[in-house]
């Protein structure tokens, strides 16, 4: 994070704790923040996809909750292997992970409002299951993951599921290359999710927030993730400048006879930890254990005192009559620094593209094939499994626009937009530019719904840092993120790194810097969707077409590999985004959609599919590069004709027939829609 811009007027809290916080806006005299966190659960999902993906959702939700926030939305960027073979492990992973996200997210009652999925053979042995969560918190009610000032002697209270042997060694497991021979042993390192218990713990915790706020009590709060009880309590106490004593005998366990090291660092799910002044402990325990009856909800679950904050900066674990650990607390929490060597960035990989049009490819075949390409086809068969509307706050659910939008503050017109991006076809060619495109695409998607970008978060999914090539891709991607975020003036407020996404045979995943962007709308009434609204509107590209087909879906279909990625002119992009904000404010935009996978032709088709029935479009531009080049801007449907300038190119118009006309060819929109809808429906029936 030290290499990324992390400050700016929208930052309420930078990347110091479990999640960052961005200033959404003010309502009724209160400053509201959006909490954002981003994580991966890649290794577990490859081994046991249902549980792995489900616990990914569970973990990120706790990261947001422990900032004192209400959890308001989740999103899932997914990267799977090639799933055409119904018998393949990749298909099992791709199906199981979606089922796991569905089962967990739906049960806890948090809407899933954004996400993406890409399929590439580079993910056959290492899927990527990232998850983003958002929370809402008033600035003066943020809770920190640290023992508060003057808290020596306060209680350490463990809340949640009874500790068992599941997830023992989970963090270490996440950091090894996966070996099929060890598949069974790896399964024991995966945590077991319980969304039912989590649902109740979340609601009980909201009640505890209310109780503590009513009494103006500052407490410390943190979720248990990697490193279990020891990792969590040590970080809580060390970051407040204290030490801790924890009695492992006081931990509620699911079975007797667990070894002290299993109790101390096992990663049993659905647990949180409070630092509370002793006189408040009884009431907090009452809320969890009596009012929300945790012990009756799940066997052995409860809130219980397991230790105390100590003035002396040592970390002491007791088990039976013995002290089983007594070390300086900073020893457990200090960062390990290591800077492996990095190869200098080579020249852009691949040959410059020839003009594709010279090859005489007919778009009659190419256009339908682009729409049915695995990275372009409709994602509805996946997101229909996720509850996108629970809480009643959803303004734009998935499928209607590039970003999801919610109205999280009851009574306020403030809206929150959320998008994700990160194209692995780009990552295979050039991680430095792929990272920049990930930031740009995420920001454009938020702009497409009429929101202004507040901040970013990332999950950097890469291979083995011990391999100089794989580590260099990682290092170059971070530089790319910094360049894009600096130029677009959008800060990163949280992030996550997932390394060792490689098989023992040394195959790393495509470079995958995955970025999420949070945006704000002052008035949700101005939110823009991507479906065409009426016939006879003018269509424009806001941006500039380039002769750069590297990583494009159409290039792959035409058998081209490599080739330079589209370059980015940040000064112009900033003008484009400003112009878009102006046009949205003026009410001049009827629909908008970022151009990415499949290019302008696919974008226009998707705007037809999402639009009013019976409305089609005529695309007046031609050439393979023009129709199918990617990453070049946004397609907008304008209410009335706009004056053309260097950044605004007329693309065509909407028509009153259900057709998509490209050059001289008329395609029937329902036929194209069927082609576009089928590929993933076959994998996700």
């Amino acid at each position: 994070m030290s290499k990324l811009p992390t400050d700016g007027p929208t930052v309420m809290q930078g990347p110091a704790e479990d999640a960052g916080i961005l200033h959404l806006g003010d309502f009724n005299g209160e400053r509201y923040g959006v909490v954002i966190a981003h994580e991966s659960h890649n290794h577990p999902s490859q081994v046991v996809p249902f549980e792995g993906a489900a616990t990914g959702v569970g973990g990120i939700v706790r990261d947001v909750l422990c900032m004192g926030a209400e959890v308001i939305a989740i999103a899932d960027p997914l990267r799977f292997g090639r799933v055409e073979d119904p018998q393949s492990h990749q298909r099992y992973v791709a199906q199981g992970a979606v089922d796991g996200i569905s089962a967990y997210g739906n049960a806890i009652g948090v809407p899933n409002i954004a996400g993406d999925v890409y399929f590439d053979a580079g993910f056959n042995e290492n899927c990527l299951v990232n998850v983003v969560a958002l929370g809402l918190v008033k600035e003066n009610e943020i809770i920190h993951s640290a023992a508060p000032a003057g808290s020596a002697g306060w209680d350490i209270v463990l809340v949640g599921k009874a500790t068992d042997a599941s997830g023992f060694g989970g963090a270490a497991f996440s950091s090894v290359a996966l070996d099929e021979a060890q598949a069974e042993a790896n399964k024991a390192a995966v945590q077991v999710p319980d969304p039912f218990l989590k649902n109740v713990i979340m609601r009980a915790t909201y009640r505890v927030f209310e109780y503590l706020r009513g009494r103006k009590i500052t407490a410390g709060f943190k979720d248990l993730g990697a490193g279990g009880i020891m990792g969590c309590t040590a970080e809580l106490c060390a970051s407040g400048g204290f030490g801790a004593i924890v009695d492992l005998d006081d931990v509620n366990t699911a079975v007797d006879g667990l070894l002290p090291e299993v109790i101390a660092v096992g990663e049993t799910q659905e647990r949180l930890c409070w630092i509370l002044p002793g006189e408040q402990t009884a009431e907090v325990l009452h809320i969890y254990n009596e009012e929300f009856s945790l012990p009756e909800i799940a066997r052995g679950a409860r809130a219980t005192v397991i230790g105390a904050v100590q003035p002396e900066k040592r970390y002491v674990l007791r088990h039976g009559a013995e002290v089983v650990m007594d070390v300086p607390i900073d020893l457990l929490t200090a960062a390990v620094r290591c800077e492996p060597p990095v190869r200098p960035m080579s020249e852009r990989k691949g040959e410059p593209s020839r003009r594709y049009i010279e090859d005489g490819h007919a778009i009659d075949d190419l256009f339908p094939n682009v729409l049915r390409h695995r990275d372009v086809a409709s994602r509805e068969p996946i997101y229909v499994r996720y509850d996108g509307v629970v809480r009643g706050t959803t303004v734009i659910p998935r499928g209607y626009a590039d970003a999801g939008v919610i109205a999280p503050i009851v009574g306020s017109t403030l809206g929150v937009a959320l998008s994700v991006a990160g194209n692995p076809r780009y990552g295979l060619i050039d991680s430095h530019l792929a990272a920049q495109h990930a930031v740009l695409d995420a920001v454009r998607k938020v702009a497409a719904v009429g929101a202004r970008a507040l901040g970013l978060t990332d999950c950097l999914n890469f291979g083995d840092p011990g391999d100089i090539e794989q580590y260099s891709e990682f290092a170059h991607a971070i530089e790319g993120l910094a360049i894009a975020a600096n130029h677009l003036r959008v800060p990163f407020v949280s992030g996550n790194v997932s390394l060792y996404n490689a098989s023992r045979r040394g195959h790393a995943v495509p470079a995958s810097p995955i970025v999420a962007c949070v945006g704000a709308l002052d008035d949700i009434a101005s939110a823009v969707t991507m479906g065409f609204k009426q016939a006879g509107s003018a269509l424009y590209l806001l941006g500039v077409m380039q002769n750069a087909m590297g990583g494009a879906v159409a290039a792959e279909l035409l058998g081209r590999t490599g080739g330079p990625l589209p370059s980015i002119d940040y000064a112009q992009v900033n003008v484009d985004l400003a112009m878009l904000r102006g046009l949205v404010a003026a009410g001049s935009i009827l629909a908008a959609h970022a151009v990415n996978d499949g290019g302008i032709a696919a974008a226009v088709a998707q705007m037809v599919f999402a639009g009013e029935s019976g409305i089609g479009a005529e695309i007046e531009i031609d050439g393979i590069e023009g129709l199918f080049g990617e990453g070049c801007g946004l397609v907008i449907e304008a209410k009335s004709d706009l004056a053309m300038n260097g950044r605004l190119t007329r693309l065509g118009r909407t028509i009153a027939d259900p057709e998509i006309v490209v050059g001289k060819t008329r395609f029937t929109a329902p036929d194209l829609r069927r082609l576009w809808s089928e590929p993933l429906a076959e994998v996700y029936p």
Partner: protein
Amino acid sequence: MSARVAVLVFPGTNSEIETWRICRDVGLDADIVHWSDAAMLPRYDGYVLPGGFAYEDRIRAGAVPAHDPMMDYVIEAAESGKLVLGVCNGAQILLEAGLLPGTGNVRRPTAAFTKNGPVPKFVCKHVHIKLAIEPQRCAITAALPRDALIPAWAAHGEGRLAASAEHLAEIEEGGHLAFVYAHADGRVDSAAVPNASALGCAGLTNKSGNILAIMPHPERDAWNYNHPQRREKGSILAPSGGSRLFEAFAAALKSP
């Protein structure tokens, strides 16, 4: 004075906030009542069982919460003629409690909302439900126009009405089929049904017409801002669309 309504929370319920909000926004005096406060239930004029996964959908959605002590109060209130509305998981609970269609005995269900078909998976889709009875057949729908069409979100894994042929016949002949799935233009056919529900059923009422269960969630398409491509007149924060069902519920509760 507005009628008092309890929005019940079982362990695993997840839709209590928006259900409470829409009740409040249509003029009801609504409280969220948790399972540990079950003893407070008798004081209310009406009851709403919201969506979620009460008791983790163990055995079958609604089967375990139907035996929660809170349901003793709801059953007693329903038998005394008070109004009870169940949405999604709330609907499943009312069927499992035997209150709907009400052709058998209490806690002896004759029909259930069970695993979706043809694919037994959770589905989240925007739908419309159409009133399939005379409005006054059920007190909760009495204020709706005939053939009322209400937008809602189906969001469930177990929403397919299943019953024996004999019990399905009872449902049809007894006028229990309160709502069916429909297209946005009001047409009714199997393509509008998201879960292969028998009779295209989206909602049921009982013989006395004081209990209504619907599977899709009108409270998730209940404010102007909830309709991404269909803005209605008035403030973006104003109730509209799915709120009409709750307005009808409120009207029935207020009538003398």
